[in-house]
């Protein structure tokens, strides 16, 4: 996708065609007004994009009676944390938090190991079947474990791991996406570096741990951000596997909590619970928005 030749081939044509349009273009007014309108429009879209979240925040911090009422004017005056207290006591959200953290970071830890090893093999070791295997790895990106919930449930059942945190984590211990991302990064490191260290008697695994991994730290951070964001938010698979509060993550807990409240008067509780679940990632995102967006951008380019 970021092939420089590809870029140049088409730009030449584009430039030629652009200059042939010179006359027609010159007739067009150069609109400062149009630009201003465009900026205004996009800022408005941005504002519209914020509305749902603002609405939820507002409802979460209002006394339940205010949300049940008109919700219009006067709704901005009284602020309370009572909804959050109610939610925190009404369902074991503390436990859900711990579960989500354990699952998310458990997955990440194992992934970092499996991904590093496989990426190094694909980047620097010539072994029989490498090309075929690399193509096979693509399958996980096209058909993620979430699309195979039905079969994976039965596999997990055969292993006797239903309703365990390990069962929720297992399908994600391998990450083809991570392998592709890291392989690309490893290949960009000069091979001479590895040869030099090897002559000094360092083993290949030692080189991987001491040279490759540290030099690719930014790529690891990108991968970690994408992985954590995904698994923090994952729902369908944990919903099917977890059957008890001991193992339920936040997303499943939230869904159960929302289902248990029926009437409109309880919207303030649902909004508070929703915020509780979404808050950590949103907070990290706001604090490191540049790094987050760069990570997803980086990951997408290589994927």
């Amino acid at each position: 996708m970021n092939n420089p030749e590809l870029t140049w081939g088409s730009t030449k044509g584009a430039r030629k065609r652009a200059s042939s349009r010179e006359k027609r273009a010159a007739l067009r007014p150069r609109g400062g007004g149009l630009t201003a309108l465009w900026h205004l429009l996009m800022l408005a879209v941005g504002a519209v994009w914020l509305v749902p979240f603002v609405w939820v925040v507002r409802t979460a911090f209002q006394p339940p009676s205010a949300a049940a009422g008109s919700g219009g004017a006067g709704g901005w005056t009284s602020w309370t944390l009572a909804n959050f207290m109610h939610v925190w006591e009404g369902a074991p959200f503390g436990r859900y938090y711990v579960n989500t953290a354990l699952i998310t970071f458990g997955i990440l830890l194992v992934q970092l190991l499996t991904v590093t090893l496989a990426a190094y093999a694909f980047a620097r070791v010539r072994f029989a079947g490498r090309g075929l295997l690399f193509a096979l790895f693509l399958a996980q990106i096209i058909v993620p474990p979430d699309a195979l919930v039905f079969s994976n449930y039965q596999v997990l059942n055969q292993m006797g791991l239903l309703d365990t945190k390990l069962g929720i984590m297992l399908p994600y211990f391998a990450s083809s996406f991570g392998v592709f991302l890291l392989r690309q990064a490893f290949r960009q490191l000069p091979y001479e570096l590895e040869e030099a260290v090897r002559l000094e008697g360092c083993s290949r695994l030692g080189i991987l741990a001491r040279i490759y991994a540290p030099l690719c730290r930014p790529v690891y951070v990108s991968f970690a951000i994408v992985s954590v964001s995904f698994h923090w938010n994952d729902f369908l698979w944990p919903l099917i596997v977890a059957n008890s509060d001991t193992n339920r993550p936040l997303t499943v807990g939230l869904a159960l909590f929302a289902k248990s409240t029926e009437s409109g008067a309880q919207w303030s509780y649902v909004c508070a619970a929703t915020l509780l679940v979404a808050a950590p990632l949103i907070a990290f995102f706001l604090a490191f928005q540049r790094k987050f967006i760069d990570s997803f951008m980086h990951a997408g380019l290589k994927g």
Partner: protein
Amino acid sequence: MRTGWNERVGRNAFGWGLVLPSLLFLGLFTYYPMFRAARLSLFELNLATPKPRFVGFGNFAALLKDPVFLKVFVNNVWYAAGTVPLAMALAFAMALFADKAIKGRTFARVAFFYPNMIPMIAVANIWLFLYTPHFGLLARLASWVSGQNTSLLGGPHTVLGAMIAMAVWKEAGYFMIFYLAALQQIPKDLYEAASADGASAWTALGRITIPLTMPTTLFVAVIAMTNAFKLVDHLWIMTKGGPNHASSLLLYHIYETSFQFFDQGMAAAMTVAMVALLLLISALQVFGWDRSIHYE
């Protein structure tokens, strides 16, 4: 000779050893489940038939005659057709703005992207609230526009549209990221040259920006289309696929069939259909990508 052979065996063992951990988990939770679903799709296995009975392609034939499956499939196609172009067009506009705007650049990026940091299930809660008759912001807006009390999620003709609006809100910012990356790769002197030639901003957009982001458009289209089939968490909260299957999507229907109706044979057949569909859409990218590489 002897050492060369030893070296080669060692190298192969080393390579396979490194790949083995990943391969183990991929085998267990990607390859084996696909194989399993393919095999089981040839058997009848449900509450009435507790022992698998071989039916060949009978399950697939039954699917093609099953009005619910057909409805769900058509729903999914409409859902994709509604979400993908809208989200992509918005994503492109957002990227153009977030790339260039000096004032409000960070605001725009954060405002467009933050929905991706919210779990789909929480997004579903938020939008369910927005759509709740009497209380919800969008429900009130819809009632005001139509002049009567409207329940957007309750109506079979509006529910899919309501889902599409939510999906566009959630996904456009994600696709924006890819366009932002693509825009950064376009050499700036191209625009300077175009501007010196007297080309308007519109011409530059049509002759430089859009053609040069074409590979990204293809890439995003594939992601967007597969996402339209993969992301179904919201249904669990918002509608359970209703009213009368009007909002059900393929993966959610698979979930229902296997975990609520316990029809394993049919669920397997639908899983096979789903995998085939995902492979087909992804193949578009490979072929399209090949062509765009060679068009020089």
